[in-house]
């Protein structure tokens, strides 16, 4: 590496060496959309739905939206840490959510709930460490690693459960948790809000969250600041696993049943919520609160489609397109807007 080549072949030359030292940035619609768009779009979507979609603005429907949004939201909030650390996503949340739900109900039925929760925590730690070591220590591609752990995890779950549905005790703690509502808010929504606030605090105000962000922004600079970067990646995947664990519990409580296929689609709905919320798949930029907003957007969209008679297929198409569009806007905004 030589002086001349690095300076001269630089495709994006450094800002001019003027005395002021700061580049003026012009307003750009793409930059604006990638940063602030979600607020406006969410508001517009909700407004549109409230006016034009019959039954959207009813208390029952809103409670239903919250009930469905809560587990996905909790998963998305945890996965946000993986995305911010520039490791794309954690596909294995699908397996993790189902495992935690099945463990909770199955073990509660056979022995007791706390044991089921303890097993769940153990499994979540294993997921976090296995994914984290493969990505952080072996530097393997996160998409492929979590694709393989998804299959392994779901395989183990189906093999052990035989794909059967576990029904919880209708009068048990889990069922009553799932049924409790405060006004239109199910308890699950409260859990989501508490988790979001907590994780927001972790991301913005603790050294761990700070390092995750800076690792996503520039992993070499972070390493050179003396950060134990492999451990950091393991940490990010463990947070994601904890989100999936809690998401699984909430999901199990809502329906008071658990089955290995109950979390199909959680991977991309969570990813869509994260990306639509404005967290960048290129890493280093993002917020848990925005992910919450993304969850509202994605859940409302899904709900509107259900109410309008669009089936599962259309919902998947919409969310797939949403992911590609949101990332495109981010990518194009980066091209025009510099950093």
């Amino acid at each position: 590496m030589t002086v001349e080549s690095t300076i001269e072949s630089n495709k994006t030359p450094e800002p001019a060496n003027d005395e002021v030292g700061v580049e003026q940035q012009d307003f750009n619609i793409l930059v604006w959309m990638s940063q602030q768009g979600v607020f406006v779009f969410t508001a517009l979507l909700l407004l549109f739905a409230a006016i034009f979609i019959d039954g959207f603005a009813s208390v029952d429907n809103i409670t239903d939206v919250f009930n469905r949004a809560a587990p996905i939201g909790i998963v998305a909030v945890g996965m946000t840490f993986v995305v911010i650390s520039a490791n794309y996503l954690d596909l294995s949340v699908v397996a993790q959510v189902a495992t935690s739900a099945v463990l909770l109900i199955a073990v509660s039925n056979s022995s007791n709930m706390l044991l089921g929760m303890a097993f769940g925590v153990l499994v979540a730690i294993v997921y976090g460490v296995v994914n984290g070591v493969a990505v952080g220590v072996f530097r393997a591609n996160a998409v492929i690693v979590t694709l393989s752990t998804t299959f392994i995890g779901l395989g183990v779950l189906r093999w052990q459960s035989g794909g059967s549905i576990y029904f919880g005790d209708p009068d048990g703690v889990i069922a009553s948790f799932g049924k409790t509502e405060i006004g239109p808010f199910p308890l699950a929504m409260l859990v989501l809000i508490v988790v979001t606030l907590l994780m927001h605090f972790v991301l913005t105000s603790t050294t761990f969250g700070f390092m995750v962000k800076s690792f996503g922004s520039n992993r070499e600079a972070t390493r050179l600041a003396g950060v134990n970067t492999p451990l950091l990646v393991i940490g990010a995947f463990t947070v994601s696993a904890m989100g999936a664990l809690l998401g699984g519990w909430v999901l199990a409580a809502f329906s008071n049943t658990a089955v290995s296929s109950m979390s199909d689609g959680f991977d991309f709905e969570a990813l869509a919520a994260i990306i639509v919320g404005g967290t960048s798949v290129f890493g280093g930029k993002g917020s848990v609160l925005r992910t919450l907003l993304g969850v509202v957007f994605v859940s409302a969209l899904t709900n509107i489609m259900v109410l309008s008679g669009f089936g599962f297929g259309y919902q998947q198409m919409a969310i797939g397109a949403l992911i590609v569009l949101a990332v495109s806007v981010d990518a194009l905004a980066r091209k025009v807007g510099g950093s």
Partner: protein
Amino acid sequence: MTQNTTLDLGNEKPGLAGQIKTTFARRTEGRAVVLLIVVSIWALIWESAVFTAYEVTLGRLALIGLTAVGLTAVILMGELDLSIASILAVSGVVMASFDNVFLGIVVALAIGLVIGAVNAFFVVVVGINSFIATLGMLFFLRGMAFVISDEEPVLIENKEFALDFGKPLVGEFTPRVLIFILTFIAIQVFVTRVRVGREFYAVGGNREAARDAGIPVRRRVFTGFMISGFVAAGAGIIVTLQLTAADPTAGGNALLTSFAAAIVGGILLTGGRGSVLGTLLGTASLAILQVGMTFNGTEADVQNIVIGLVLFIAVITDPNSIRAVLGSTRTLLQARTASST
């Protein structure tokens, strides 16, 4: 250091032993060969039916191999195509929706090409990571397969043709095996003998150098994704003909097995390294493994666990990872020393 007369530039000395060593060192299929030997021995001892009922094994090989070989073309350029699983489902459903089988096949293949081009557009023109672009496409197309099929399997009108398709055509080979063999040969020849295909290695190995040498990088990426899309669509058609119905949920496992086959086969995920032959060997070992497990009554879920483990181990044991792990472990374990001083 010898001076003046000859210049020792570190070139390897010839000689038979040296030549054999060199040949081995040049190959990238090592892991696939090892896995193939291990599973073959396992199958010979415990499930020799894998080899006696070879038409079953070959059928499985063709099934896994087709998408894997197409995917290889993309990975050689350092890109990923996760959408293959859904292309498989969509093409099957589209094909089955036509009354005329041949028209259906043509339209389905065309759709595969178009999807490949759309993937490439997002990757090279918009500038998104191929994992994310094709992941979005994976979800989008899965939804599309559901929409087209109305969430039900679509039966093929022309059952005769579908049934004929399952019968041996040349010797013991069914059309599906023949198609796989032809596809393998075509792509193998393409990336080793055809200029455009060979330049995939340059695009994946050193993109800057490829550009400087005047290779149209964008066009190569388009070609790669279109090959992958086309082949995946072909796989969807074959699966549909075999089942005489199109299943909108088809392809879930194809994603896992294709990546496992390619990565075991020595295709470097960052591009530029590997061979289609490696993918074939990887595919063969997975096919023997799957068929062997099926024969000895292993549940499908356990089979998934095994294939998942193969992929996991393969992805963390590629040469880059092995190099990374040395440095990373040092950093990981030194944390304590650092804080104690």
